[in-house]
């Protein structure tokens, strides 16, 4: 046993360090600032670099630049800062530069409720930057997960050469819970691939059979071009329709062809359930509690907790939808993931939202009331 009590934000930073992150660029914003503070303190100890940039646009740019030198990189922000990062987040999607963007969600829109929790950036995390693009979004529910899933987020970014959004919320970010470091010390760590050909044979965006390109770190003798313009396999801009179509398709396919590897979730009591709660982040904690109380009262209620929010676990939801009277979706927004669940359920069952946007977390009672309305 090697237990330490820490905040979700701190756990996220320590997870990043354990995953091999050696560069952080950020800009302070509540409720994410502790991530930057831990990184500022810890990175130099391991020879890493921390920089507080002049804004979130610059932070996003700096981590992409750093990643191209081969470093694992992280940035952390919240609502308004996440909005500012969007253009360069799209740049990272298109140029396939691995990076992890932490967004500790707070109440919005605009400056909103800086110190209150929300889950209102679910759709922004997927669609915030312009253009069709793939993205991976992961949402932790416990402090331990802030650690373990940050490691996973970094791994996925490196493996699939893509940005990963780590979508926390204020409750999880500031919650204090113990982590037993003996339990998390042997987590798998993934490094991006290195070229296995000579510089003469190297084609930066050729991407092998898995559709994932190998980007050599700048300075290692493989000179190539990176651009946010739609590009060909050599990395140079093109407007040739077949090449453009192929590139856009490959970008989506590298994620869509690997859903079984990327999508993770937790489920409980799905067999025989009359109602399934679908919840993520801190709302999943209340949902779990609600389920316990309902189960104790002999109600067949199950829980499905997507850990990967995007790509969305569509197959799993469709399966659930075919077997239940209703799906109840508690979220601290006006019904964002609910839309996606309805789409996946395709009319097979009712989808009922428990929504709250007053800056307070959703309570188990509120979820129980919604379930009772169906049962």
């Amino acid at each position: 046993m090697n237990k330490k009590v820490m905040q979700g934000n701190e756990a996220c930073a320590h997870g990043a360090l354990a995953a091999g992150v050696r560069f952080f660029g950020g800009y302070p914003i509540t409720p994410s600032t502790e991530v930057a503070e831990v990184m500022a303190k810890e990175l130099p100890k391991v020879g890493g670099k921390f920089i507080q940039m002049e804004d979130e646009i610059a932070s996003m740019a700096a981590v992409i630049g750093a990643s191209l030198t081969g470093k694992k990189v992280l940035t952390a922000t919240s609502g308004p800062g996440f909005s500012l990062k969007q253009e360069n987040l799209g740049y990272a999607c298109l140029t396939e530069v691995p990076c992890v963007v932490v967004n500790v969600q707070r109440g919005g829109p605009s400056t909103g409720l800086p110190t209150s929790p929300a889950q209102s950036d679910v759709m922004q995390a997927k669609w915030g930057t312009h253009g069709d693009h793939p993205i991976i979004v992961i949402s932790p529910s416990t402090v331990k997960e802030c650690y373990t899933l940050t490691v996973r987020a970094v791994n996925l970014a490196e493996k699939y050469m893509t940005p990963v959004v780590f979508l926390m919320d204020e409750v999880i970010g500031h919650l204090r819970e113990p982590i037993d470091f003996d339990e998390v010390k042997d987590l798998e760590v993934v490094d991006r691939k290195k070229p296995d050909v000579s510089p003469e044979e190297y084609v930066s965006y050729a991407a092998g059979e898995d559709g994932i390109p190998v980007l050599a770190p700048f300075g290692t003798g493989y000179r190539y071009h990176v651009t946010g313009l739609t590009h060909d396999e050599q990395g140079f801009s093109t407007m040739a329709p077949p090449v453009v179509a192929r590139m856009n398709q490959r970008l989506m396919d590298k994620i869509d062809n690997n859903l079984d590897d990327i999508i993770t979730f937790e489920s409980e009591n799905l067999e025989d359930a009359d109602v399934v709660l679908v919840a993520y982040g801190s709302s999943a904690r209340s949902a779990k509690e609600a389920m316990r109380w309902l189960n104790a009262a002999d109600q067949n209620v199950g829980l499905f907790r997507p850990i990967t929010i995007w790509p969305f676990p569509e197959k799993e939801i469709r399966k659930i939808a075919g077997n239940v009277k209703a799906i109840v979706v508690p979220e601290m927004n006006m019904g964002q993931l609910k839309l996606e669940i309805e789409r996946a359920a395709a009319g097979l069952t009712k989808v009922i939202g428990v929504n709250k946007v007053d800056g307070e977390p959703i309570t188990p009672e509120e979820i129980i009331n919604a379930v009772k309305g169906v049962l």
Partner: protein
Amino acid sequence: MNSAYEKYFRQDRLPHIWCPGCGNGIVLSAFARAMEELNIDQDKTVVVSGIGCSSRATTYVDFNTLHTTHGRALAFATGVKLANPELNVFVFMGDGDSSAIGGNHLIHASRRNIDITAIIIDNNIYGMTGGQYSPLTPTGKKATTAPYGMVERNFDLCELVKGAGATFVARGTVYHAKQLTDLIVAGAKNKGFSVIEAVSQCPISYGRRNKMKNALEMINWQKEHAVNVKAAQKMNPEQLKDKFLIGELYRAEAPEYTAEYDKLIERVQKGGK
């Protein structure tokens, strides 16, 4: 092309897309000559640019090249340089790119005195989008978005970066191409943030609208209005009216950011606070 400089260009990407008479190509040639003079290691050099006609430069030069988003080149470059200070980092930007949307990054790169050499191609206009005014369009001049003449005051970027902390500040022109090469060389040798403003011409989006019929007229304008800093010392304000200064405008000593950060790492790893 002179074979000594050929190796700095991606031959398969040429010819470039710039309009006939555009100054960008001449600035790029001055850059290539500077690389030759510096005997630079192409593998260890990163060239970053923003978005604009001038920023297309990164397509043509054979280095690790990074064509970023509009205005953000210096922020990307800061990440590159801090993550690996062994890399030589050069940045190409347009006047709009560097001074409007990217103005804040220019200020902070200067303040940090990060070892990056920035070449700002100043054609007084937004070339790529077809001739809208930039913060460097002189008051009174015409642009598609200043059809009655530019109302705002224009920037002196060299003064700005000097005030913000850059340790090497210079201005050159396309007409004085040899000097421009020398300035890029000197900027690259400065261990800190160096800015070289290259006054250039955009006959298509600026010249035509401002009574300068072609590139030749515009280059002549540069010749007639540029005054070397040394020569300027012997001139009176009346003589200097309507003129602009070229040459090495400012140099200073200051700690360089990435070196300072490396010292911090050393201190922390030794257990210091």
